[in-house]
């Protein structure tokens, strides 16, 4: 039994960035590297394992970028097709999930273009927000959460594509600025500027709600 050994693919760590979640894509396990090799050689079982390994991450990102489940499913399917198609070009010295994120953003951009042609919008919370469990006793609390989600969804929908991608990768996927810059093929300075702009827009959009609720400041 070979023990699970992680490979440090990229050293993106910045001194000030101490908040990295568990799912950072900078580490590629050796077992995943073997799966990638087998899948690149045409092993469909190995590729199925890769999909199982990354499907939640891909679906989460596609849904956040596109805002509805149907487009998210189509995008995830296209992402995995592209992953299989270009798996031979993937270099083992780069983080696999960063590469998958790159493909995901490209696919979401393509689908968003098509969606603009058909003038579809982000789905509202009544349609898309089905994760609120029915057994919650406090109906008012549920309603507040639903309003908040709809608010933030609309706020994100107003963001330009690159700002949206940057803030989602940084604040929700938990990647560092350098990793986001690598994924978006940009510079950390540009990404930092995009993130700052996105946060300002969200704050302005949600400002009235935040003032009305008179939320208590959070400890930094």
């Amino acid at each position, binding site marked *: 039994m070979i023990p699970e050994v992680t490979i440090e693919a990229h050293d993106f760590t910045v*001194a*000030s*960035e*101490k*908040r990295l979640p568990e799912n950072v894509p900078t580490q590629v396990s050796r077992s995943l590297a073997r799966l990638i090799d087998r899948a690149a050689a045409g092993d*469909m079982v190995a*590729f*199925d394992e890769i*999909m*199982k390994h990354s*499907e*939640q991450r891909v*679906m*989460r990102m596609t*849904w*956040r970028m596109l805002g509805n*489940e149907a487009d*998210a*499913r189509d995008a*995830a*399917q296209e992402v*995995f*097709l592209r992953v*299989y*198609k270009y798996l031979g070009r993937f270099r083992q010295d780069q983080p696999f999930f960063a590469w998958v994120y790159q493909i995901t953003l490209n696919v979401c951009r393509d689908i968003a273009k098509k969606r603009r042609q058909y003038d579809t919008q982000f789905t509202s919370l009544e349609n*898309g*927000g*089905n*994760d609120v469990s029915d057994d919650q006793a406090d109906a008012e609390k549920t309603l507040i*959460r639903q309003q*908040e*989600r709809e*608010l*933030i*969804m609309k*706020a*994100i929908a107003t963001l330009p594509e690159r700002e949206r991608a940057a*803030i989602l990768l*940084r*604040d*929700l996927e938990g990647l560092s*600025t350098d990793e986001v810059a690598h994924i978006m093929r940009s510079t950390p300075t540009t990404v*930092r500027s995009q*993130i*700052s702009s996105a*946060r*300002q827009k*969200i*704050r302005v959009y*949600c*400002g009235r709600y*935040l*003032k009305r*609720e008179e*939320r*208590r*400041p*959070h400890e*930094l």
Partner: protein
Amino acid sequence: MNCKNVEPLLSLYVGRDLEEEQSRLVAAHLRSCSECTLAADEYAGASQLLQGYEPPFFSDEIYAGIRGQVLNEIKREFRAPVRPGIFSQVFLALVQPRMRWITAVVLLAISVTALYLSRNPSHQLPNQEQVTVRTGEPTRGGGGADVRSGNSNESASSSLLSHKAQDHVSSRRLPTTARRKANAGLAANNRSQHLHNTKVDAATSESVVQRHVDVSQPSTAPVPLRVEMQTSNQNIRIIWLSTQRPRAGARDGSKGI
């Protein structure tokens, strides 16, 4: 730092995207500025709202369906292609970007060659009329002429006979047996002449004219004329080409040359 300097950094400060030194300066300003503190609180509230932007729950059936569709699509799209035939392979190879220039050059060369050949019929020699003239070794010194003078007419006549006979044989395309007989007669005649000239060291001047005429073509056709003359030196051969036919009086070939 004042409010003007801090304000652009607040969003990055809340998201912990600042360097340690900048973060320390902003924190120091916030302790003394309520307005910037309020703005920082709004950023923090927006960040907390953003954390609630979670996708709905996707069941295992949804993921299994996506995987199944992907695998089916891969089997359909990335199936091993049928090997094309040899002509298809050649055609595909020729139209490839790397081979386009070579193909164009080859086609251009073929076209130019065909055009050149079509405009220069002299290069086509299927119906060429060929006259071959062989000259013997010249008489060595003037003495030879004196010794031979007695038989000069006979020699000349035999030479003319030889020329006419061969011309006749060649031009009429006699059967092989008849041609052999005619050549045998000529050989006997030459042999007797050779016996007459035993005192002559070198062979007398001899002119043999051969004309090869393709009788399948009318003689009036403006076919090119080719005359070859073999000199006494075996290494020198004179070839004369003409697109015009010799004059009517020189049809035997000897006078036209």
